[in-house]
């Protein structure tokens, strides 16, 4: 390599190949810097892709990934025709869509309220406090939910009993569990997602509001005709990107919160893959289901990105 550079003829007479080699050599420090990161991606992101072939094989741990016998689409067929397929898809989509539809409006309203408030101190405190739960782990939130919702001593159930109702065992009652999943997610993440909308609001030119005020618009009219349209791009973008992850119903959250009595309403694709794959050693079947989820996810992201580009003028990539 060194010789290529030393004996290189003047730039004008170098062949394209020599020029490329020279450019690569000039950047050798940067490539060296890239090496650990690329090695990491090869080991922990691309090797798993290679391992994913066991979805089409009857994986035997002793024989390894490469030597296990091929079985074609058997595992996919087994999954699609099994009774849990419809249950898993229902739970996953229901929880995911509910989080999106019920969770997005509070974040938008919170951002507008923070933006509109004339008490800046209150607005700032609210913003800071509401995004703090985002940094709590689901284990901590689980502890908080136990304290709030437990049938005996939970604050919510004390209220229910005081109002003359019967205590509800929210975390083990199949009728209440999904609501707990959705509302605990809203409690944890609303402040965090409001940051994006707030950034969009701050980006709206103040002259628009001033002009509207001169024309006699009320505050509500200003929100409807200036703030909301100004946030529309971001709202569309956030919605589409979440649609791209519609099969991620929140693995960590459900893994911590759920228990045997509520599997029927809480089990989602990811939790099922974990139980079948790791706990029941059904490596091939669980990989097939994981791969199915990954492919749907990829498809959704590509579609969502197309639409986002058309509507919002920008996409994820």
């Amino acid at each position, binding site marked *: 390599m060194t010789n290529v550079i030393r004996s290189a003829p003047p730039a004008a007479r170098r062949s394209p190949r020599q020029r490329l080699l020279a450019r690569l050599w000039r950047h050798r420090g*940067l490539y060296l810097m890239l090496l650990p990161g690329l090695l990491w991606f090869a080991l*922990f992101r691309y090797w798993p892709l290679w391992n994913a072939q066991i979805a089409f094989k009857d994986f035997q741990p002793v024989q390894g990934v490469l030597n296990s016998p091929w079985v074609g689409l058997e595992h996919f067929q087994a999954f699609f025709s099994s009774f849990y397929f419809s249950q898993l898809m229902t739970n996953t989509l229901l929880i995911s869509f509910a989080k999106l539809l019920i969770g997005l409006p509070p974040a938008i309203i919170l951002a507008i309220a923070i933006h*509109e408030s004339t008490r800046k101190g*209150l607005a700032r405190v609210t913003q800071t406090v509401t995004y703090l739960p985002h940094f709590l782990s689901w284990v901590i939130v689980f502890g908080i939910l136990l304290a709030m919702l437990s049938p005996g001593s939970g604050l919510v159930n004390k209220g229910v009993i005081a109002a003359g109702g019967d205590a509800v065992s929210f975390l083990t009652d199949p009728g209440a569990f999904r609501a707990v999943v959705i509302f605990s997610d809203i409690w944890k993440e609303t402040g965090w997602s409001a940051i994006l909308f707030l950034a969009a609001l701050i980006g709206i030119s103040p002259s628009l509001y001033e002009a509207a005020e001169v024309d006699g618009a009320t505050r509500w009219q200003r929100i409807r005709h200036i703030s909301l349209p100004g946030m529309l791009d971001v709202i569309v973008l956030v919605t589409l990107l979440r649609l791209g992850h519609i099969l991620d119903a929140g693995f960590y959250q459900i893994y911590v919160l759920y228990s045997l009595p509520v599997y029927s309403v809480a089990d989602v694709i990811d939790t099922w893959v974990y139980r079948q794959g790791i706990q029941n050693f059904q490596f091939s079947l669980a990989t097939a289901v994981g791969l199915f989820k990954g492919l749907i996810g990829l498809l959704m992201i590509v579609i969502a990105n197309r639409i986002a580009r058309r509507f919002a003028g920008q996409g994820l990539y």
Partner: protein
Amino acid sequence: MTRVRRQNDRAFDRTVNAFLIAVLLATLIPLVYVVSVSLTPLGQTTSLLPRAVSFNAYEELLRQPALIRALGNSVFLTLSGVLISMILTVCTAYPLSRPDLPGRKFLTGVILFTFLFSAGLIPLYLVIRDLNLLNTYWALLLHGAVSVYNLLVMKNFFQNLPESLEEAAKIDGASDLQVLWHIVLPLSKPILLTIGLFYAVTQWNSFFEPVLYLSDARMMPLPVVLRDILTGLNSAEYVESAATTTAPRTP
């Protein structure tokens, strides 16, 4: 006309501020209540604000060697995890942010692809197993060491730094590593702190991967031990007192 509008405005302001206070309370009440539970003396029922304060639960907590060890494990994992993650992320983001690096688009594509499509849990588990990393901390430090999202944020930040400074350093004979260390990183403190915080929070909060990759109870970080305590409570159909929320089952 103006009077009506001003009255409307005042009503509007009241509505907005009332809403903010409501949201603030909805966020705070569960947090305050949990603290209150922990401070309530044994045997008393908890109210939103404790009537009497007792630190028994916390004393009990400090007497649990399992918890202290878990705390130490968590601190170690978080510190070393952030270090590894930051080195890998910076060293990947910086070269990819250089506009004149041949192959940069291709390599960015290779990395971005893993963001859009992943093989799932089991194939990664098999990698960790085949690398003989099961039941070692390396599994936890490495399996998610680089976040593509953080990497791209950092790369964009590097790209927006003024290029002339780096060129000047280059002309003075600085190597790429020297430019990164002496010029780029000092200019990037805000983004380094933010991304470092994200990595720290993720590692500190992680409770599923330790269960997945570790089998030795003594190696478990705090969230796992905490979860075991809580699910122990859960199966015992919830317990009234504060001390039990902090006293773990002996493993």
